């Protein structure tokens, strides 16, 4: 394991190149080895290929090598850390952030299948793999909430219902929008404009900005404090999965705009709605117990959005530029 940095150290580092050894460590680590991988390196790895995006078959082959068994995780030490080593303030802060992800994973799992219908055959392979990834991430959170947090229920929906009180009212912004955009795609699966709007919400905003930011906050806390090893392992492996999703999603958007430059208008219109909603928070979340301030989380969101747009070559209009500055962190991902 490399040197442990403070959770927010990465904010002042900026983009950096990973060594071949670091890339190999991330790409080839088995589940046990993932515990030794630095989350900052994995998030950097997400961006590594954004300028020259891999094709969908390459992403599918990576999936076959990197898939992991969620039932191999042992949450015994996490349960001890949660009950005996973490403070109540840390637990509440953690739940306020992780619960958005618990629900986000379920949402992105069930909203993705309709997108496959209008995709190329190679992209279908990648989407099928992504659906399996998202299902596995849903089980990961179900296990964490049952075995570590101690929520009880007969089935997955029971546990989702039990963690819902920690989910902010603004969650319905991006995830309700995704559900309704998925319904538009369901009705017209070959409507490329509807697909680009859907892809902007799913791949650029939810996965590229929200998910990576929220992952970073809880994982850097766990690594910094040396707590929750199974959570760190499973969620860092999840982040590695997300690197394929973000790269595939950015490739889809980039190809769509290259084929028809007017598609950038669909991206802008979708961002206009998303950024309108992202300027609002319904609850005050205390990040300090996890080593962050609200301003630092906002900066992290901003950096994640800028990097995706820059790397994929999407320019914002002046009104969208102004909206980016008022974004409030939404504690969710998928």
């Amino acid at each position: 394991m490399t040197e442990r940095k403070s959770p927010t150290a990465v904010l002042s580092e900026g983009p950096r190149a990973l060594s071949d050894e670091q890339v190999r460590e991330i790409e080839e680590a088995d589940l046990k080895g993932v515990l030794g991988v630095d989350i900052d390196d994995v998030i950097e790895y997400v961006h590594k290929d954004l300028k020259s995006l891999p094709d969908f078959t390459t992403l599918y082959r990576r999936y076959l090598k990197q898939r992991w068994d969620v039932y191999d995780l042992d949450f015994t030490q996490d349960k001890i850390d949660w009950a005996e080593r973490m403070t109540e303030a840390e637990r509440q802060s953690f739940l306020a952030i992780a619960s958005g992800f618990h629900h986000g994973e379920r949402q992105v799992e069930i909203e993705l299948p309709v997108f496959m219908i209008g995709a190329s055959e190679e992209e279908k392979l990648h989407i099928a793999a992504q659906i399996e990834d998202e299902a596995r991430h849903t089980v990961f959170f179900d296990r964490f909430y049952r075995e570590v947090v101690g929520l009880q229920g007969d089935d997955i929906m029971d546990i989702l219902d039990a963690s819902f009180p920690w989910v902010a009212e603004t969650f319905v912004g991006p995830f309700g929008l995704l559900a309704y955009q998925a319904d538009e795609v369901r009705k017209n699966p070959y409507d490329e404009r509807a697909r680009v709007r859907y892809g902007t919400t799913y791949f650029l905003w939810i996965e590229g900005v929200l998910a990576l930011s929220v992952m970073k906050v809880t994982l850097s806390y766990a690594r910094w404090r040396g707590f929750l090893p199974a959570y760190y392992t499973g969620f860092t492996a999840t982040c590695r999965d997300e690197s394929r999703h973000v790269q595939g999603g950015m490739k889809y958007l980039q190809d769509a705009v290259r084929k028809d430059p007017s598609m950038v208008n669909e991206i802008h219109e979708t961002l206009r709605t998303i950024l309108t909603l992202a300027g609002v928070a319904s609850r005050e979340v205390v990040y300090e117990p996890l080593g962050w301030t609200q301003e630092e989380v906002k900066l992290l969101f901003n950096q994640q959005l800028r990097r995706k747009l820059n790397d994929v070559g999407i320019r914002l209009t002046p009104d969208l530029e102004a909206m980016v500055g008022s974004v409030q962190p939404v504690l969710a991902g998928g």
Partner: protein
Amino acid sequence: MTEPGFFSQEWAVAVGEALAAGPTEGVRTDKLPMYWDFFDKVRAGYASSWALGCRDLPAGIAATPAYLHVEWGGGTVTGCRIAGMDEQQKATYVFGMDYADWRALHDGYDAQRTVMYRKILVEEGNVLEFFKGIYFFTECLGIIGRVPADFAALAVH
């Protein structure tokens, strides 16, 4: 006191009054002022109308599907009534929802998951424009769910 039947004109009048009154102080204290500032700003400029449908209303009250037609303007509700198929075409946004989900909303199921789990869906209208006011909509849906309604009387029909 007898509660108005679900999807009756009396119920629609009560819904209109509740929406015009807006969220109670109790509801407002649960969320940040920033959230309510956004709600109030959307409401002040809202000039759209909703046709909130019940796809499988039990027979005897209205033709199925029936719509709760809500019109907004000048920061308040300007019309709220039960309408049939022909009138829903005049609404900015047309929504579909099953009777069981309307009843669940009335029994306390939250508006946020009603949207997120697609229990209510936009059947007609611009989704991106609609979502710019989604927090306003979900709060209003919650208000509608809290208006007393007699579902038992409907079941008899």
